[in-house]
């Protein structure tokens, strides 16, 4: 029988590499009165990594997303973000101005309902260009060119650049919302059920697009979804939530193919097979 002795002795149990996390969440808790939104959630997200947060409605995944994206102050716990200069900053100790600047430059947020993330009464081009203008770009021609480029990347034709998103289909609106978020080349994007409410075929196209953009741009993503297929297709790692707590976490395909927690097994076994 062979044993580890046949190998050189430098056994390494596989600690993370020297790379530092982009986002570190520690002991994050949010309560609503006596009700728990999410409790004692901790995880790290590394550059270029996609983390899926899955669970049923009311499991606390949206509360968690809002807390880590600075949209909802947690009751306790911390969220640290590694800024472009390499320094780690507690997002709830920043000034509101810094936080909002971060949100429209280095971060993106893709809402489930595109209406929440778009300006419905201004053109697609202006929707995409807004972040550029917000960071001081004052050249119309350049802004427009960037907008057209980004529309092309999300498969929206140049001829729609001056149309308002209310004339767009649901799938197009969602793609526009994605372009609007990515134009400043953020490093971290939060997504709340990005394919929810879309037809299956539209969903597939969007997922494929997201997959490509995430790998091309090296985006780190936290995606909240109740759809395990979405989690499998997009994410490297996932955490499973129930009643506000993380009940299982790990490699996406391992959690889905070899689920340990009773609830995860129930979730996985509830997937409809086509």
């Amino acid at each position, binding site marked *: 029988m062979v044993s580890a002795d046949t190998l050189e002795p430098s056994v390494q149990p596989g600690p993370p590499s020297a790379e530092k996390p982009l986002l570190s969440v520690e002991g994050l808790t949010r309560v609503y009165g006596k009700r728990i939104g999410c409790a004692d959630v901790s995880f790290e997200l590394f550059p270029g990594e996609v983390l899926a947060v899955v669970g049923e409605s009311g499991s606390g995944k949206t509360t968690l997303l809002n807390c880590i994206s600075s949209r909802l102050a947690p009751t306790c716990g911390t969220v640290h973000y590694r800024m472009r200069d390499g320094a780690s900053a507690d997002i709830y100790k920043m000034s*509101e101005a810094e936080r909002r600047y971060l949100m429209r430059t280095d971060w993106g947020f893709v809402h489930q309902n595109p209406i929440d993330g778009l300006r419905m009464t201004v053109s697609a081009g*202006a929707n995409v260009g*807004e972040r550029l203008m*917000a*960071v001081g770009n*004052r*050249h119309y021609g350049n802004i427009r060119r960037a907008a057209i480029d980004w529309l092309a990347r999300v498969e929206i034709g140049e001829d729609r650049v001056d149309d308002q998103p209310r004339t767009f289909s649901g799938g197009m609106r969602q793609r526009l919302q994605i372009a609007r978020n990515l134009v400043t080349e953020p490093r971290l994007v939060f997504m709340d059920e990005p394919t929810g409410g879309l037809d299956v075929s539209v969903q597939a196209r969007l997922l494929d697009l997201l997959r490509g953009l995430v790998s091309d741009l090296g985006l780190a993503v936290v995606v909240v979804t109740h759809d395990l297929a979405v989690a499998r297709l997009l994410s490297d790692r996932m955490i499973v939530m129930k009643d506000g707590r993380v009940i299982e976490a790990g490699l996406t395909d391992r959690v889905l193919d070899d689920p340990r927690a009773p609830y995860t097994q129930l979730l996985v076994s509830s997937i409809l097979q086509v």
Partner: protein
Amino acid sequence: MTSPATDAPEPTLARYNFAYLDEQTKRMIRRAILKGIAIPGYQVPFASREMPMPYGWGTGGVQVTAAIIGPDDVLKVIDQGADDTTNAVSIRAFFARTAGVATTTATPEATIIQTRHRIPETKLREGQVLVYQVPIPEPLRFLEPRETETRKMHALEEYGLMHVKLYEDIARNGRIATTYAYPVKVEGRYVMDPSPTPKFDNPKMHRSEALQLFGAGREKRIYAIPPHTDVVSLDFEDHPFEIQSFDQPCALCGGEGVYLDEVVLDDRGGRMFVCSDTHHCESRRAEGHRGALLGDEASADAASATVKEEM
């Protein structure tokens, strides 16, 4: 703008305090004005009062004027540049009756000029106050209806949205088509709505020697531009701010480089372009300037005169 008297001189209406508002209210408004002057372009909330005229008729401007006017002031009121329109005439009469002050149509003679939608062509000088009537003080409202959010945007200097509006203009029209209420940045800090004046007047606000005060009655906001303040119109590098230009001079006084109104003469397409600033036009005619549509005989009526209006 001398200190107001609490006892109004004759022959004001006995029933009203000097300039209609009570002294407490004036003090409150003056505090808002002072704060506005201290933070150029910042919209200061104030407890706007009911005035004896409907909202939209200049209640904000009237309250500002009432708070700063003194017995020795000389008041001019214009509406779209004209001294003789209903709104201008009524407001002038209002202060003549409630404050007993002198009124004028001559820009250089006025100490306070209340205006709706124009800045006089005559360059304003130190010591004069221009009071604007403002319908909607919030320049961001068009794109962001939530007041909580727009106030935050002002506080954090997040003005990307203003350029979104200008972008939309160019995308739709090939150029910035906003011609009035054209947004400006005041002293490099606050973005401000100059009220619905034509953008032609924007350069006049820049480093003006006069104090500029803005009152929005319905919206309960006062803001100010102190003398010699930078006022820059927003634009794009490749679509710089430009004022309107007219390809013909005023039909009455031959004036050029002034803002003209189009006047329809008949039902067969006949029209003329004349100075929107009536005082400016009349003074030029009094000096002998003649436009294309005016005969040669000198009009005898005086262009303007300072009069104490009859009761």
